[in-house]
């Protein structure tokens, strides 16, 4: 009888850490053939349009960066929280909190000096997301409420807060749709590349990668946050105020997600609608895992995801494969990556009896 055992292996060399995500992406693309073929798409044509649609033209290439921006921020948000084992599944709600705050300020700050408007909105959006995330962090540290459940449930609370406001005080006067008035011009992110939607928020999200990398690597807080993630009891006995660390982690994590909401509102939609986020907060979880919780990894996995999402549009138009293929590929990418990561630490031994 043959049995399989999973046993620990010796640490892999450094190059393997870079090769494994690449191998996982290639494996995911191979597995994607199954749903593509099921949908009756021609394989090579589908793959071609997937990448051509995302990278092939100037506009689409820039559009891939536009899509990557919120994914990058929510991915960083989740990665930063997970690193400290604060299970923040609530990036979606925190994103909405940021977008909601940006709407309120963006509509009503007409009488303020124009130069003040955008910085205020960005800071307020960050804080809104951060404060929304610090609620489950408080519940976790003070009242031992499971953070997975509370962050998830708060997503739905935030969606309904948004709904109540969009059907109420925030609704555009005279409109019967759940949408807000447009924000003032001073509240809009500048477009940086002509004839495209490449906006300032994209630079902000790239800067966030650098900042989070610095925080993780070079600050005492980054060290403490990691220590809490590895072993909260040991961190506590080592003299770290774990409650404060988790709270600050939540604040930064939620803040990043809130910035994603600000970006979507002030650079793309200009007014709040119910569909402001097509689940960026949830995609952020996959992106964070795919990037192995490392800021640079998150950068690459968010780019990979935006290629899939933008490319799937063109692929769908040209081959008839539903655009939801993008979500299927995302889910598969996560599982493949998990399995690949497992085999960086473990190997399968075949035992014959």
């Amino acid at each position, binding site marked *: 009888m043959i049995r399989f055992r999973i046993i620990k292996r010796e640490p892999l060399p450094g190059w393997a850490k870079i090769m494994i995500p690449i191998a996982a992406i290639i494996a995911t693309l191979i597995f994607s053939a199954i749903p593509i073929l099921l949908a009756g798409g021609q394989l090579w044509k589908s793959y071609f349009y997937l990448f051509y649609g995302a990278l092939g033209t100037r506009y689409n290439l820039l559009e891939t960066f536009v899509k990557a921006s919120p994914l990058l921020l929510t991915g960083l948000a989740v990665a930063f929280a997970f690193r400290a084992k604060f299970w923040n599944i609530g990036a979606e709600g925190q994103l909405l909190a940021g977008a909601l705050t940006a709407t309120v300020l963006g509509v009503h700050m007409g009488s303020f000096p124009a130069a003040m408007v955008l910085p205020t909105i960005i800071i307020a959006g960050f804080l809104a997301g951060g404060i929304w995330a610090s609620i489950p962090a408080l*519940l976790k540290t003070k009242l031992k409420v499971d953070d997975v*459940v509370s962050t998830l449930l708060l997503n739905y609370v935030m969606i309904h807060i948004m709904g109540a406001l969009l059907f109420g005080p925030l609704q555009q006067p005279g409109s019967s749709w759940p949408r807000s008035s447009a924000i003032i011009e001073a509240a809009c992110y500048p477009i940086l590349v002509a004839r495209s939607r490449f906006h300032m928020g994209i630079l902000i999200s790239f800067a966030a990668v650098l900042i989070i990398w610095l925080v993780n690597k070079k600050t005492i807080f980054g060290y403490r946050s990691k220590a809490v993630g590895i072993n909260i009891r040991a961190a506590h006995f080592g003299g770290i105020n774990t409650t404060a660390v988790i709270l600050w982690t939540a604040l930064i994590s939620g803040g990043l997600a809130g910035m994603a909401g600000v970006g979507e509102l002030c650079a793309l939609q200009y007014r709040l609608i119910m569909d402001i986020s097509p689940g960026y907060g949830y995609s952020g979880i996959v992106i964070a895992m795919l990037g192995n919780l490392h800021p640079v990894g998150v950068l690459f996995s968010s780019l990979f995801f935006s290629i899939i999402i933008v490319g799937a549009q063109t692929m769908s138009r040209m081959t008839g494969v539903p655009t939801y293929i993008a979500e299927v590929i995302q889910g598969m990418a*996560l599982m493949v990556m*998990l399995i690949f990561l497992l085999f960086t630490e473990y190997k399968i031994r075949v035992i014959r009896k």
Partner: protein
Amino acid sequence: MSEILNIAFISGLIGATMRMATPIIFATLGEILAERSGVLNLGIEGIMLMGAMTGFLFTFSTGSIWFGVFAAACVGMLLGLLMALLSVNLGLSQHVSGLGITLFATGLAMFIYRLHFGSPTVPPIIEPFKQVALPVLSRIPLIGPALFTQYSLTYIAWLLVPAMSILLYKTNIGLKIRTVGENPAGADTVGVNVTLTRTLCLVAGGALMGIGGGFLTLAHQNMFLIDVIGGRGWVAIAMVIFGNWDPLKGTIGALIFGFLDGLQLRLQSVGLVIPFHIFLMIPYLLTIVALIGVSRRAAVPAGLLQPYRREEKGG
């Protein structure tokens, strides 16, 4: 007049409570089974959506609604098996595997639906379950008609609650499941197959989650909408904690949630002044409040979240 209105309102509310609680009861029981064996299955939301979609698709194609229920259970079992493969056999993080399954299953459900139905302007519908009045019981004055005129799946859910309690507390199998969940290494020592037990619990639990999802498209509504689950899987996870991993207490939680959900629906249909989104929010908000109340004395199965690998025993 107002008295009649009140009776109509209250009996409507009782009926709605039972209806809205049914999918949560199924999902909560499925999750309790998984968690009692030591696996937190966060794939629940996705499994329910796949159950809802598959149940609808099979009923639409075959015309047999019970075949749809069967298909929903099967797809739940398959996804439960996938969860077992990732989190039990490979020992991956339960949080991440579960969320991965939810994301994968959500994408897959929408993908398959689109593939089969395209993007119609009017969503396709099926002939849903009809409510069945239980003889004698449904003639009890006041509460009888409302309480005992329900969908067959609701009655099945009621029967499953004591069945699950008996399974967990009164049978040898239940003892094995609980031992695996509390102390996997100990269970292994006395000859219980930890991997197999957890796998079977995830598969059976997945079936219940799938049926819970199926209820929403086969009885509660007669069509499939993308947001049909609307966080009910996560509510079930909360109800497991609220009910302290006990089938009966978890069901009470599900009934409270069903009551709030039903109240919200009834108030919407009566026409109200407060924005209905506030009412939609209440069940989620109160679930969080309830969790605050119970979390400090929660009796979490000690082996929950712990992958079990023989080689690392005691490590």
